[in-house]
């Protein structure tokens, strides 16, 4: 497990060449899964990443499907979090991520956490949280 705040800025190394190709600057999510990782000046498929929990981000560059755009991959920290009732829960302070790139918890600026499985989408205005599960509670995951 790692924190998004630790992942952002982490060096990315291509496995075939052992060359540092950039640093992580953002992620794109589909629900609670990372689907793209934005490096300094390129974006790669998350499926090419060996693990998100290492000291550096290693990836299979032959399968990374590089693209120059990556506009959908961003740093979601600071994004407001709204539930399906239209109530503001807080602002994303950090995310805890599994080694496979799944959001395990959303850490809010209020100190509350929300289970990653409740994350529906992160847009430019807000992250949307489902309301089928219990409301946010508990202490932040460190």
């Amino acid at each position, binding site marked *: 497990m790692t924190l998004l705040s630790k992942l952002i800025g982490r060096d990315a190394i291509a496995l075939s060449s052992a060359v540092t190709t950039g640093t992580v600057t953002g992620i794109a999510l589909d629900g609670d899964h990372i689907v793209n990782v934005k490096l300094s000046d390129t974006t790669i498929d998350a499926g090419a990443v060996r693990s998100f929990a290492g000291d550096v981000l290693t990836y299979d560059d032959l399968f990374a499907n590089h693209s120059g755009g990556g506009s959908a991959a961003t740093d979601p920290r600071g994004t407001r979090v*709204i*539930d*399906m*009732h*239209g*109530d*503001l829960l807080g602002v994303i302070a950090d995310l805890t991520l599994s080694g496979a790139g799944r959001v395990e918890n959303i850490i809010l600026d209020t100190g509350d956490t929300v289970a990653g499985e409740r994350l*529906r*989408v*992160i*847009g*430019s*205005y*807000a*992250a*949307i949280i489902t*309301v089928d599960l219990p409301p946010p509670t508990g202490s932040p995951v460190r």
Partner: protein
Amino acid sequence: MTLALMRGADLIGRPVVDASTGERLAEIKDVVFDARLGTITGLTLRNPGLLGRRLNDVLPIGAVVSVGTDAVIVEGDEALTPGDEAPANMAAAKSDDVLDVQVITESGRKLGALRDVIILGGPAPRIVGFEVGGGPVGNGLVPLGAQAAVSGNALIVPDEYEQRIREDLTGLAAELSLMDSGFV
């Protein structure tokens, strides 16, 4: 879930958020409602921002997932309907059409002027009361009763409503709770 009471004025400027994308589609410009039935029929819209221009699109209440304390949630941008295709019941009064009309009891006593509508948010938002001000009874909140009638000139309420005026939303919520439970 917060089933909050809110003034109509509080709803103005509230973002309309697409729950499928997390994008802000518009802001609320006004509330369209049937005061006699206490039903909200839709919301008119404007582009986001302080100087947001009016949008031709409207938001029929049936397309609203929830009216929350911080956002109005819809599912997909198709929830917004071109104004010329709006449901017929959206031709009812807008909240600013009835502001400042006189609130009068059935016996003819003027309680004051209608200052705002009070809305119960959530997945089935509705008008539950009115704010009255500038009259002999001072400022207060009046629950919406089934007998209420409204026009561009006056809102008629039962005589006993003079005793039901409450100072704040908490008091109104308690009053509404009593009404729902059949105690009054």
